[in-house]
């Protein structure tokens, strides 16, 4: 138990360190933010990727081993205790955490304590007795909770190790391959639902996924409503702008491609020449000395930021407005027909269900541990025909004693003050 507490405290510290140090940055970034020595220390201790570092995994492994051993070792005694909890002989052998003597009628006390109807029994020396026990399931709370946490950590870790993620983006009409799965996503439609005030209500894409063997499945996906196709989950993730780029050579059409902002094209008959479509501004404004900006999301004044590379050297960068032409020697380049593209995230994680089950089992365990409190109440007949009532609730503690005394008609506070000091 002490080890468990130490582990939990260490885990809490590890998590907080991981959240206080910005994750996933480079040595240069940390050196600038902190100092060179701190940066070296951060990298040496893997604090830049704390949640996947060997020491974080080690702490969790210890936690899992502890939980597993603890649950295994406790299983036999837990089963025995569960049996004993409702066994009249075991109950009558106890002394009880609280007792009241000289009770004339015990049944109403059982009722007031919301105990099940007591069963008749006898003590070892044959004295008549009444016993009642409830909420034995509560004994299993900690055990079930620990099992849930174990499932959660195992499901999460296996998921991290085996999951596959892909992203595809494109405009309606395009079909893009999904990594190395042999599947392809065809984007049938993409809609941005706007409210009256121009804010985005929903992004919705209709997709058809083509399987490796020619089968296909279609679905509509939107934010918060992913679809499961071919064992993978498809998420409407984000959006951006695409445009049609046309290249002519000596006036003759040479090439036409739809590029999403961030993509580039190689000129067909001169692969050394690359046009990079950097960004799109639907309502372009340029203030002196500032970076280009867009004034709104409306297509009022479309501007295309491009750069041109020849043999990997940048030879130009500028903003081209709708209708303008960029001329490079014999080539003429235009951007037109801006349209939103959709980015679809694709994920395959077979262990999400295990982790979810772990979460649910943990909740069930906590519910049992906290709100299903085992209690035993029994009455033994005195020689004068009245009864001695005893009660025991391992978890109920002082609160159970209070309830017990109140139910037995002992006035509030009488037994409480004297217990102190």
């Amino acid at each position, binding site marked *: *138990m002490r080890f468990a507490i130490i582990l939990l405290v260490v885990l809490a510290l590890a998590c907080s360190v991981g959240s206080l140090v910005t994750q996933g940055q480079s040595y240069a970034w940390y050196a600038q933010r902190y100092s060179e020595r701190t940066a070296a220390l951060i990298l040496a201790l893997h604090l830049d990727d704390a949640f996947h570092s060997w020491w974080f995994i080690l702490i969790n492994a210890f936690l899992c081993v502890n939980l597993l051993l603890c649950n295994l070792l406790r299983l036999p005694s837990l089963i025995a205790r569960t049996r004993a909890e409702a066994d009249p002989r075991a109950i009558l052998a106890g002394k009880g955490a609280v007792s009241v003597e000289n009770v004339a009628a015990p049944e109403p006390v059982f009722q007031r304590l919301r105990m099940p109807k007591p069963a008749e029994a006898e003590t070892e020396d044959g004295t008549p007795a009444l016993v009642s026990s409830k909420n034995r399931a509560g004994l299993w709370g900690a055990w079930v909770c620990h099992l849930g946490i174990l499932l959660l950590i195992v499901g999460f870790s296996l998921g991290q190790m085996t999951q596959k993620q892909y992203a595809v983006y494109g405009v309606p009409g395009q079909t893009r391959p999904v990594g190395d799965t042999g599947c392809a996503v065809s984007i049938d439609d993409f809609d941005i639902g706007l409210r009256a005030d121009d804010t985005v209500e929903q992004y919705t894409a209709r997709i058809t996924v083509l399987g490796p063997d020619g089968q296909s499945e279609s679905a509509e996906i939107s934010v918060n409503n992913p679809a499961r196709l071919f064992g993978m989950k498809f998420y409407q993730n984000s959006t951006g702008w695409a445009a049609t780029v046309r290249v002519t050579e000596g006036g003759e059409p040479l090439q036409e491609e739809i590029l999403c902002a961030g993509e580039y094209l190689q000129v067909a008959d001169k692969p050394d020449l690359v046009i990079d479509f950097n960004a799109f501004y639907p309502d372009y404004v340029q203030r002196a000395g500032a970076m280009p900006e867009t004034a709104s999301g409306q297509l009022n004044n479309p501007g295309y930021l491009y750069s041109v590379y020849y043999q990997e050297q940048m030879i130009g960068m500028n903003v081209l407005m709708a209708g303008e032409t960029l001329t490079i020697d014999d080539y003429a380049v235009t951007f037109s027909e801006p349209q939103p593209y959709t980015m679809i995230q694709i994920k395959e994680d077979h262990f999400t269900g295990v982790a979810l089950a772990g979460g649910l089992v*943990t909740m069930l365990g906590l519910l049992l541990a906290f709100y299903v409190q085992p209690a035993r109440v029994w009455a033994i007949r005195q020689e004068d025909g009245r009864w001695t009532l005893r009660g025991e609730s391992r978890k109920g503690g002082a609160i159970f004693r209070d309830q017990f005394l109140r139910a037995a008609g002992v006035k509030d506070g009488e037994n409480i003050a004297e217990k102190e000091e």
Partner: protein
Amino acid sequence: MLQIENTLFTIVMLIYFAAMILYFAFIAARKEGLARAAVALQCAGFALHTAALVCRGIGAGRLPLTNQYEFATSFAWGLCLVSLAFIFWYKFTVLGAFAAPVIFLIIGYAAMQSKAVHELMPALRSNWLGFHVSTAIIAYGAFGVSFVLSIIFLLRDRMKARGFLDSHIPNREKLDAISYRSVSLGLLFLTFTIVTGAIWAERAWGSYWSWDPKETWSLVTWIVYAAYLHLRIRRGWQGRAAAIFAAVGFVCVMFTYVGVNTFLPGIHSYA
């Protein structure tokens, strides 16, 4: 509707303030009547606060649980709810005197936030958001009560005026047991919060856990309270040590709530 909500909110703030003063007067003057009036006032404040939240929900056309202002006022509401429940359940009026300043601080924090109603970005338009945040409110309210109980516990140990204390504050053992009840309520609901949040994140972003600072800090909070539970089981660690631990837990809660938004960037920055 939002106009009504605004007015109600101001009234509620004044009522909570008045209840706090009455509670203080009760402790200073030790008159039972003042205590009853303070509890009645807190109940009235709670009822109007509920009405204010309903108005905001109707006015905004959705659950009022999506920005800093809405969460802060709901947090105060949750703390008020859980503290009233504990006051009545355990017949423990003095709890109100210590809870009232915390409630007032939180609703004061809410008053400083922007009350503008914004339309929700698509990722926030999910029923899971409702479960996620409403369970968080109960969890935070329960942790707030456990914090208040820890303070009472630690003060009780230091105070000398026994007569008033013994009649109005439960003994150490019972205080510890009540504190355990509030922590367990909070931990159960924090678990609901984290699980519903993970389910929602999985649907919205495709990843149910991504070590975002807010997620991480809610996990830290969860672990701290789990440690509290195990500490309490060890003989001799109930009482003082447990009370200190529960107070530390609430510092984590507050850091998760305010600190993370202020100091650490992440996907939760909007809420």
